[in-house]
């Protein structure tokens, strides 16, 4: 049986109760967007196939992209791509030694969020 003094010690490191810092949130989002893109590649390849299959296919794709649901899906895939690329560039910059300090991490994460949100909004405006 455990004594009262033992009870006060942390039992284990329950990762689900730890508040993630901003850099960790952008990191997990990078992974999630990558997983979305894994499915998204299929959608993009399907669209490329249709667009190159002939004038009829090209017209059909353009017609399809006037459908709100289809536009939303494409926007979703391109948004995941935009975010994944921006976060990826941050990753590459870290790899060559930029922004490795503890102070730089939340700033870099904020920049990633702002730039990708901007791109996602621009993509939305461009698609609609």
């Amino acid at each position, binding site marked *: 049986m455990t004594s009262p003094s033992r009870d006060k010690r942390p039992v284990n490191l329950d990762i689900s109760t730890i508040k993630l810092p901003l850099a960790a949130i952008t990191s997990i989002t990078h992974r999630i967007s990558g997983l979305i893109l894994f499915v998204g590649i299929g959608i993009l390849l399907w669209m490329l196939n249709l667009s190159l299959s002939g004038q009829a296919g090209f017209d059909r794709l353009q017609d399809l992209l006037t459908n709100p649901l289809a536009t939303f899906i494409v926007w979703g895939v391109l948004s995941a791509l935009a975010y994944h690329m921006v976060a*990826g560039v941050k*990753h590459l910059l870290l790899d060559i030694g930029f922004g490795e300090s503890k102070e730089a991490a939340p700033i870099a994460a904020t920049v990633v969020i702002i730039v990708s949100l901007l791109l996602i909004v621009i993509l939305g405006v461009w698609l609609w």
Partner: protein
Amino acid sequence: MVTNVISFGRSGLYDWIVQRISAVVILLYVLCHAAIILSTPDMDYVRWRALFADTGMRFFSLVALAALCAHAWIGIWTIATDYLTSRILGPKATFIRFLFLLICLGTIVVYFIWGIMILWSA
């Protein structure tokens, strides 16, 4: 280990460098296409097809497709070995992870072959 960077062994370091090189290739490919689409507001089928029929673009597309497949595989492997673990899934974790990776690998092979077929049909 630094001298091992170029080695073609199955190692974490090799994966690490492939992931970064492939990332740069895909980034350049996406930026290139974004620039083409943005600078061609009146894109029609004839121009679109001519773009992908160009030998240089076909080569670039093939390299980007290969980079994409390698990049996707390393990313999927990383995620699978991080989250599909016995800590999260219990004793069946190894089997589930193996199955997941097998399905993903199959999907990547399909993407690669399908991509080549699309590129060479243009």
